[in-house]
């Protein structure tokens, strides 16, 4: 039982920390976010060069054979700057699905260029009616010779605007909410019949609604076995949750620390705000929420590496706590910053927005509490 990072992990941590400090102050972030494609291509290139994009991939696919702790290290630091580059969409979700279920050919085709930063992949899983249920898939894929024909809509697809490929979750058999009968396909972004409606998200990132109308895809672009895509989707979703929660922990750290600092500087009624016991205790609560989230993040991540099946309950616990605590910390950071907290001018509001969005991704606090009670 050991919570120390390895020497390599410490080096990555320091390197990401430095990157965020140098490149991600608020004005810079706002500037990057407001221009297409919503992130900085040079930064993306640097991330590839520094090897971050290859970290969790197997060595035979051009990666460095890292695990979820390496991703945690990167995402926690990203959370401290609200990094905009599509690491989650590419490395954890899209790339993660291919790594887990793609054929050797597919991995060789896609992963090296993803790791080099030259091609992008994302995951299209949610649908309007599905809310947070991964197994609720109405988008159909119907076999026709050596092709499948996909019809349906996908919602809130992260970074689809820049993605060259999409891992599309489809239904090949069974009822709309069956876990069986789900199949994943790698679809090229420019395939005929695939339309994107791009829009910004609350946290300054990008997402798209995707319409698929008689989109054709070759059978060899199937990821994993026919009708058995759910296991892959679930595992990718779990990794997505771990990565998002690591980012959230980084963001919560900024929020509580910024609040501590601000209240010490700001005077009201002839005292620094930090002198008021009620505000002190509120900050203690924020700090404790942060620490508890960090503890559960470590637990869920370590358990996932040891035994993903056993870790499922802890992952539900984590996503619940991060959702609830993240919003608690965000709301109170805003409250303690007073009027300034409700403006776009201070960074805390932006961190709060990110935590709000994280709660709505891969199931919110209520959803995971409910799932937790099934164990």
């Amino acid at each position, binding site marked *: 039982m050991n919570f120390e990072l390895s020497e390599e992990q410490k080096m990555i941590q320091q390197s990401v920390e430095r990157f965020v400090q140098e490149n991600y102050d608020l004005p810079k972030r706002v500037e990057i976010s407001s221009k297409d494609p919503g992130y900085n291509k040079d930064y993306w290139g640097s991330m590839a060069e520094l090897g971050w994009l290859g970290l969790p991939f197997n060595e035979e696919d051009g990666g460095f054979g890292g695990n979820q702790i390496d991703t945690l290290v990167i995402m926690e630091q990203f959370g401290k700057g609200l990094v905009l580059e599509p690491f989650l969409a590419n490395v954890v979700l899209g790339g993660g699905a291919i790594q887990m279920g793609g054929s050797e050919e597919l991995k060789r085709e896609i992963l090296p260029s993803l790791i080099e930063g030259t091609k992008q992949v994302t995951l299209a899983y*949610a649908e*309007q*009616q599905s*809310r*947070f249920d991964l197994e609720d898939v109405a988008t159909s894929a119907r076999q026709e010779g050596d092709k499948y024909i996909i019809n349906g809509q996908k*919602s*809130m697809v992260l970074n689809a605007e820049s993605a060259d490929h999409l891992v599309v979750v489809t239904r090949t058999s069974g009822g709309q*909410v069956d876990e069986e009968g789900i199949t994943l396909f790698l679809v090229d972004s420019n395939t005929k019949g695939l339309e994107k*409606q791009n*829009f*910004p*998200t*609350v*946290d300054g990132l990008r*997402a798209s*609604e995707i319409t698929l109308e008689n989109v054709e895809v070759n059978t060899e672009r199937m990821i994993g076995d026919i009708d058995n895509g759910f296991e892959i989707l679930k595992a990718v979703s779990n990794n997505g949750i771990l990565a998002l929660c690591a980012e959230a922990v980084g963001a919560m750290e900024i929020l509580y620390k910024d609040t501590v600092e601000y209240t010490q500087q*700001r*005077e*009201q*009624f002839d005292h620094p705000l930090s002198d*008021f*016991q*009620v*505000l002190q205790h509120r900050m203690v609560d924020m700090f404790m929420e942060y620490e508890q989230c960090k503890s559960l993040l470590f637990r869920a991540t370590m358990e996932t590496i040891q035994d993903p099946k056993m870790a499922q309950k802890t992952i539900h616990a984590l996503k619940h706590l991060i959702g609830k605590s993240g919003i608690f910390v965000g*709301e109170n950071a*805003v*409250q303690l910053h*007073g*009027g300034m*907290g*409700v*403006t*776009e*001018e201070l960074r805390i*509001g932006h961190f*709060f*927005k990110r935590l*709000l*969005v994280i709660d*709505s*991704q891969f199931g*919110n606090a*209520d959803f995971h*509490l*409910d799932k937790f009670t099934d164990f």
Partner: protein
Amino acid sequence: MDIELSSEDLAFRDEVRAFFEENKIKEGEDYFSWRLGWFKKAREKGGWDVPKWPAKFGGPGWTPTQHYIWEQETARATIPFDLPFGLGMLAPILMSYGSKEQQERFMPDIRDRKVNWCQGYSEPGAGSDLANLKTKAVLSDDGSYYTVNGSKIWTTLAHVADWIFCLTRTDDSGIKQQGITFLLFPMKQEGIEVKPIITLGGSHTVNTVHFTDVKVPVENRIGEEGKGWTYAKGLLEHERTGLAGLSKSLVEVEQLKENARSVQRGNGTLMDDSSYKSKVAELEIDLMATEYTELRSLANAAAGEELGPESSILKLKGTEIKQRIQKLTVEASGIYSSAWGDGGIGFPFAKGGTGGYLNSRYFTIYGGASEVQKDVIAKKVLGLTKGSKK
């Protein structure tokens, strides 16, 4: 104790309803001319255009119950928008402290919705500690005008206002509540710069306003020099009650439930989800209780007792309820809560929901932060003032 409205009150309610019904905007009607016409007709009803003004200034002179009925009905009706700054904030001060000349000069335009006012109280760095203000007004040697320099912040709709009523400091030698002077002056003049503040919800409602050598004739001063705090203060408590906005919240909770019922979950809707419906129920229960807390407070007012610091309870509970409504709207939007702007992604109600929630965080900050309201209750109601503070 008696819950029933008197027959007079019932008749009044019917009359109000009928008026609102008759004067709804018609399809294709121009909004702004309808709006002015509406106020004209309301005036003909006997001061319904200025419901809160006392009879001697042309208001309807209603009982507290009638005011309550009016508020309830307006929350449900289609009536024109109206801003509180001139009508509800400046006018009472003019009535109490303005000279006859000032009343005659300013009140008709307020009543006719001709002049938009904004309120210049808060300053950068002062927060809920309003009296801690630094905008300087220096009287000219001949005593004919003030020169104003300084900044205001959170000035709602300053960018569309014609005039401002403004607290300025004319003396900083005494305690900070003294030496404050209440001035009125036009916004569209040299030396006034209005800068937008974009709130988290992405909207532009509030501003920073900078004054550089703005000249204000001495006849635009309300009351005496140095007494401005006294004039402004009494109104702050009144403002707090208004901030509760319970009638509006009642309507919004109904809308919330309707929205949640439009979100399908399995064989039912989100309103069948036990955590979600429990949260809505707790919200409704708190609102039901707060409504009666307001009525009890109105009944006290009717019995001639002062609206006191209990109004802080209403502000605290009322704003928290409004925030919970917004939060539950975000939750109902599910994955679509993260869509930004007017793209019309997902559920119709999701649009703007998250922006609304983010902006709603302001409710527990402005008009005296919740923490300050609790300090007020601790001191004024519970009498927790002995000893030195720690």
